[in-house]
């Protein structure tokens, strides 16, 4: 593109940026004891305009223009580097707590990452594989966490006993919520799921007698090592983890051991759910999800019942969210309704979208970036959701199928049996 044209284009963009920046960047108000004062920040306006101008100019010259490929690409053999990346990530995950620089803080962080990975993989089934936009995923997450909390509180059952219950409860809620609305088309379904998410959150806040309301629930049951808790004393006179292994008990060491155990627990469960999803993808149900996403009308014309297919996607997605919710509860030792708002749903959606809908590894990478970004400083924390919102738009415009969206077929023809020569 000739320089003059690009410059004119950039100038126009800069002008728009100027108009947009003036009211909200150029001015702001502060409320002080003596009234509201107005602060001007024209320097920031100038910077914003300059950035937009330079950015737009650069964009015109960089060779990689928005090549939106409408045809999705299918890979014959998984690219070697993504395969190695997957194994590398797995090795890293297994070794993480024992690496030289590991600390309690880093293990805690990694556990958070794993929770989001599990959430991402669950939502991936619904959005990435089945193509159903669910904007209220946090609701199922909440059901899982609260099931653990309330089961512990009212029935006194332990973590591992409650875990399947958390998944099943979430799946039931998922099916119940999905049943009435499955016939809706994509965007309406999305808004309705958003509404459900909000309804669940409001109910959790207001049903104080049952859920504890905004104060949440404390003292969730924590994972035990085959029934042996990570604490100073075991209830009912059993052995604690430390006692069993003949370790000296100190609160600090115990906390670390528990942390590490939770980390490996969730790693194991996450890997199991990953295997489950990969296997499902190669079964009729998984192919039906993808067929539904590609073309619902053609799927119906082939005799596939869209209702059952959508229900199963919702149920599996909710199941995984329920498990993640249980781990979230154990991880924090505390649940409250505020952890399960639309922001949370949007975050998980961002992970799935950025990771390349349908790609397990992509979700892992996106979750790692999302969770660790705020750790690099307060500025990053503030910019995090801003960047994620902008990235979602950018990915849709540039690569609608996400960053790691190259799909491998779920089935191949076996070698044809060789005919014996007559």
């Amino acid at each position, binding site marked *: 593109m000739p320089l003059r044209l690009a410059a004119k284009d950039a100038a126009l963009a800069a002008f728009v940026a100027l108009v947009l920046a003036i009211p909200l960047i150029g001015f702001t108000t502060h409320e002080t004891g003596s009234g509201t004062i107005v602060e001007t920040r024209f320097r920031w306006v100038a910077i914003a305009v300059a950035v937009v101008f330079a950015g737009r100019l650069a964009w015109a010259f960089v060779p990689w223009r928005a090549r939106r490929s409408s*045809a*999705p*690409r*299918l890979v*014959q053999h998984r690219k070697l580097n993504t395969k190695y990346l997957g194994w590398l990530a797995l090795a890293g995950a297994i070794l993480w707590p024992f690496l030289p620089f590991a600390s309690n803080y880093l293990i805690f962080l990694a556990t958070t990452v794993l929770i989001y990975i599990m959430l991402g993989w669950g939502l991936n089934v619904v959005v990435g594989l089945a193509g159903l936009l669910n904007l209220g995923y946090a609701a199922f997450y909440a059901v899982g966490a609260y099931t653990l909390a309330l089961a512990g509180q009212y029935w006194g059952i332990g973590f591992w006993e409650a875990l399947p219950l958390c998944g099943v409860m979430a799946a039931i809620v998922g099916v119940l919520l999905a049943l009435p609305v499955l016939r809706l088309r994509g965007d309406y379904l999305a808004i309705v799921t958003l509404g459900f998410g909000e309804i669940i959150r409001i109910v959790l806040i207001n049903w104080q007698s049952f859920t504890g309301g905004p104060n949440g629930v404390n003292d969730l049951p924590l994972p035990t090592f085959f029934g042996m808790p990570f604490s100073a004393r075991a209830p009912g006179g059993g052995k604690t983890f430390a006692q069993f292994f003949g370790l000296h008990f100190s609160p600090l060491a115990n906390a670390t051991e528990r942390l590490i155990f939770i980390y490996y627990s969730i790693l194991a469960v996450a890997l199991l759910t990953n295997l*489950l999803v990969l*296997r*499902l993808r190669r*079964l*009729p*149900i998984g*192919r*039906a999800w*993808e*067929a539904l996403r*590609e*073309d619902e*009308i*053609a*799927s*119906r*014309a*082939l*005799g*596939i*019942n*869209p209702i059952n297919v959508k229900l*199963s996607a919702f149920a599996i997605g909710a199941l995984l969210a329920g498990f993640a919710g249980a781990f979230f509860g154990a991880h924090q030792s505390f649940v409250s309704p505020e952890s399960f708002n639309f922001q949370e749903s949007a975050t998980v959606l961002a992970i799935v979208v950025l990771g390349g809908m349908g790609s397990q590894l992509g979700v892992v990478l996106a979750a790692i970036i999302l969770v660790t970004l705020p750790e690099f400083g307060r500025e990053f924390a503030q910019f995090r959701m801003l960047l994620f919102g902008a990235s979602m738009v950018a990915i849709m415009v540039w690569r609608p*199928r996400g960053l790691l969206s190259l*799909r491998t*077929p*779920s*089935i*191949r*023809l*076996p070698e*044809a049996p060789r005919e014996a020569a007559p």
Partner: protein
Amino acid sequence: MSEAPLLGVEQLTMRFGGLLAVDALSFAVAAHDITAIIGPNGAGKTTVFNCLTGFYRPSAGSLALNRSGKLMRLERMEGWRIARDAGVARTFQNIRLFAGMSVLENLIIAQHNALSRASFYTIGGLFGSRAYRAAEAAALEKARYWLERVGLAASADLAASTLPYGAQRRLEIARAMCTDPALLCLDEPAAGLNPHESAELNHLLLSIRERHGVGVLLIEHDMNVVMGISDHIIVLDYGRKIADGAPAAVRRDPAVIKAYLGEEEEA
């Protein structure tokens, strides 16, 4: 006709608000015939298909399908049930393949219901049951058979959207056949094909009729295809049937000529 018709359409009517798209249409499709529905654009042909395959609920009339002695009333069934239980498969005017999936996957998905049953609602499949593995192998064999029939064996693992146009049309037909239908409905299968490809299509449809005993109902504008292979032609104009019979008779029918070419007769 010695046997009962495969499909009996009685007084089919489809109204969209004030627009009468199909007006009291009645015709029959014999079990082993190739029946063509032709007519000028806007005559209501695809609407008839959509009623047959459950995408529209007819305003009035009945669609009776006779499959192995069982009579099914299509106008009361949901689209996917029509495909699964009545055995009515279709292709689309604008080709609806699963673009991002491979050619082979398209054919395997067509066999979803058989595989789903064999996997015992996925649970059997998860644990690698023998029944499921056998069913999957059978499905692959059927897919391979149809790939070879339509000449796409070499493209099994390519994304469906990367196939050339003619190949995509053939794939759609193969996919429909993988559902083991009783009635195959083709919506303009020859659209966009060159004469060589149209001849191949004729050959394919004739052999499908021969080897699989499937009734074929097609909407078509290409007269080489229509006249070449149809046993029975129905002509629609403005939603109404204006001719119904063997190709030779329909070709000479003055009402048909008038509908297509206007009042003046072409020499």
